[in-house]
């Protein structure tokens, strides 16, 4: 877009039509208007309010005391009543680890699933694709509780694991890390497959054939011919999986036995048992800022305006 140095009034060609930049923008504003207005009123303004709240203090009995200070920020980096500790950072690291592993697993399962669905006839394809979303219509808590039963000591997954010697007698697969990842993948998988399938469906197979014709091996063909075309879909799928899993804590509480806290628990606790809204707002604001900044960098570096 090296046209940007022209002044707005200059006529240019957009979508094969002679028009001015400002006219295009006026029409664009009309299209984006409702959405942006909605997001500003119901999202950006409330979020800004939270960021102000983050610098207030907890008053007696959980009320809000509007004395502004950086106390919450200090507390966030670890200065607690019990002296400095790395607890908050450990919590963040643990959450990041679970979210990252979940995302990698979801993409690893999601890519073959997307291709497998796409390899069927037209209506079968639509059916299988819809089949991905059907379990999500059942509440997350119910599905997670079903895993709790399934991974119990007397069910067949445990017997299979015992047969292969992966599990001792009388032990069960749950609660534990394995159970957490099973539950996470099972609930996040649909969100990973959605954008992947959309991009598999519009793959230009001509490029793949061209790469074959040029004697590229299957791996190179897959990498250069397929993966590069799917990058926007993969990035969308990473975002849709990584970000929600970062805030997810119900699954790790139920399937992991609730031994360890995640960032979601910590924030929830501030609006729950601790009744410390300002500190909760501080935790949340920092999380939002870090995620948005890294997402924008990710999108800009990962390609020109992929998502």
């Amino acid at each position, binding site marked *: 877009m090296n046209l940007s140095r022209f002044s707005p009034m200059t006529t240019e060609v957009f979508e094969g039509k002679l028009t001015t930049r400002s006219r295009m923008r006026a029409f664009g504003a009309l299209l984006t208007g409702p959405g942006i207005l909605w997001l500003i009123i119901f999202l950006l303004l409330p979020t800004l309010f939270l960021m102000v709240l983050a610098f207030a203090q907890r008053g*007696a009995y959980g009320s809000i005391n509007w004395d502004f200070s950086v106390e919450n920020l200090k507390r966030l980096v670890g200065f607690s009543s*019990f002296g400095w500790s790395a*607890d908050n950072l*450990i919590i963040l690291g643990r959450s990041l680890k679970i979210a990252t592993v979940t995302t990698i697993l979801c993409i690893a399962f999601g890519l073959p699933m997307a291709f497998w669905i796409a390899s069927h006839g037209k209506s079968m394809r639509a059916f299988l694709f819809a089949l991905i979303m059907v379990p999500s219509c059942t509440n997350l808590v119910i599905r997670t509780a079903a895993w709790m039963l399934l991974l119990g000591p007397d069910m067949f997954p445990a017997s299979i694991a015992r047969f292969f010697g992966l599990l001792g007698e009388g032990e069960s697969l749950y609660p534990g890390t394995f159970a957490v990842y099973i539950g996470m993948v099972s609930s996040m998988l649909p969100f990973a497959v959605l954008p992947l399938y959309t991009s598999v469906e519009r793959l230009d197979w001509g490029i793949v054939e061209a790469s074959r014709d040029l004697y590229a091996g299957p791996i190179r063909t897959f990498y250069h011919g397929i993966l590069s075309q799917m990058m926007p879909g993969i990035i969308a799928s990473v975002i849709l999986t990584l970000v929600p899993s970062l805030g997810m804590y119900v699954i790790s509480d139920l399937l992991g036995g609730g*031994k360890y*806290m995640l960032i979601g628990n910590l924030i929830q606790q501030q609006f*729950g*048992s601790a009744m*410390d809204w300002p500190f909760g707002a501080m935790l949340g604001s920092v999380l939002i800022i870090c995620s948005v900044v890294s997402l924008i960098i990710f999108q800009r570096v990962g390609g020109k305006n992929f998502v």
Partner: protein
Amino acid sequence: MKKILLALTLLATFALFVGCNDEQKSAEKSKKVTVMIYSEYIDPEMLTEFELKTGFKLQLELYEAQEEMISKLQASGTSQYDVIIASDVVIQQMVHLNLIGKIDTNKIPNRTNIADQFRNPSYDPTNDYTIPYLWGTTGILYRDSTVDPMKVSYSMLFDAKQTKGNFSLLEESRSMLSMALQAKGYDANSVNQKEINEAVEYILQAKKDPHFLGFDGSVGGKDKVLSKMDWAAIVFNGEAMAAINEDPELRFAIPTEGSFMWVDAMTLSSKAPNVEGAYAFMNYILEAKTGAQLAKYINYATPNKASLEVIDAEFKNNRVINPSEEEIRRMVFLKDPGEAARLFDEAWTIVKTR
């Protein structure tokens, strides 16, 4: 195009739906009592019975954790609720946050049914804000009929040498820390930083035990003991009762070091739209027959002395539901920690991180 039309029609119906609801609201307001209550905390039959008796339609809004309930009321106001069921530990907080108002006890003739030990309680010394609903205790559910429940100590869970099998602790910061405080010989309501620190260390040490399965809610702990994944867990007495009914091998104990009891009370919303209806509901719950029905249905003890007379002897003499005098003496009510809330919060974060 068809689809767009369909979408628009749906939207219009929705707008109508919302609009109509508004008109209906004002007409219904005087005939409806809205109660904010824990899920599965009332016998569904009582909904119809209450309507037959008083002419008020009973509408429930459910909540699961009372901190969330308070957050919600704090954020969006109390003007849509008449009666709010809340536990003893948060009553003072709700008074200070102006979420609940004073009850005119003269409007509740059945108040005389309240048992003496629930009059002038520490959480509401003047009886201005609460009418007790149900009460219960917290203790240890375990699988060993040879151990006498009167002699059970916290070391059964916390001392790695004495644990006989897997165990779970309670997933609730304040309750669990208070129990650890008592296990260390301190007051459950202590706000002393050094003592809380010791309680934290005590739980952390139990966490290192390979028998430790995790933190669980009362029901989760009960399910794990029932399915033999756990040998012992910390649960409320109502859950313990249900478990013992299913498996007579199980026992429930109030630890010798002490524990805490709790009362769930009915409070009047500070902006109740139907105050008269709210009183009618409170009065209805305090009836002898209703109190007994409620206690039997939920499996918790009733603070209603008239109900105790109509309830069957087996339920009344059940030690799990109605603990002995000696056990009651071991137990305390938890108080709002006030300024120390942050201390408990940070302590819990440490417990759950390390």
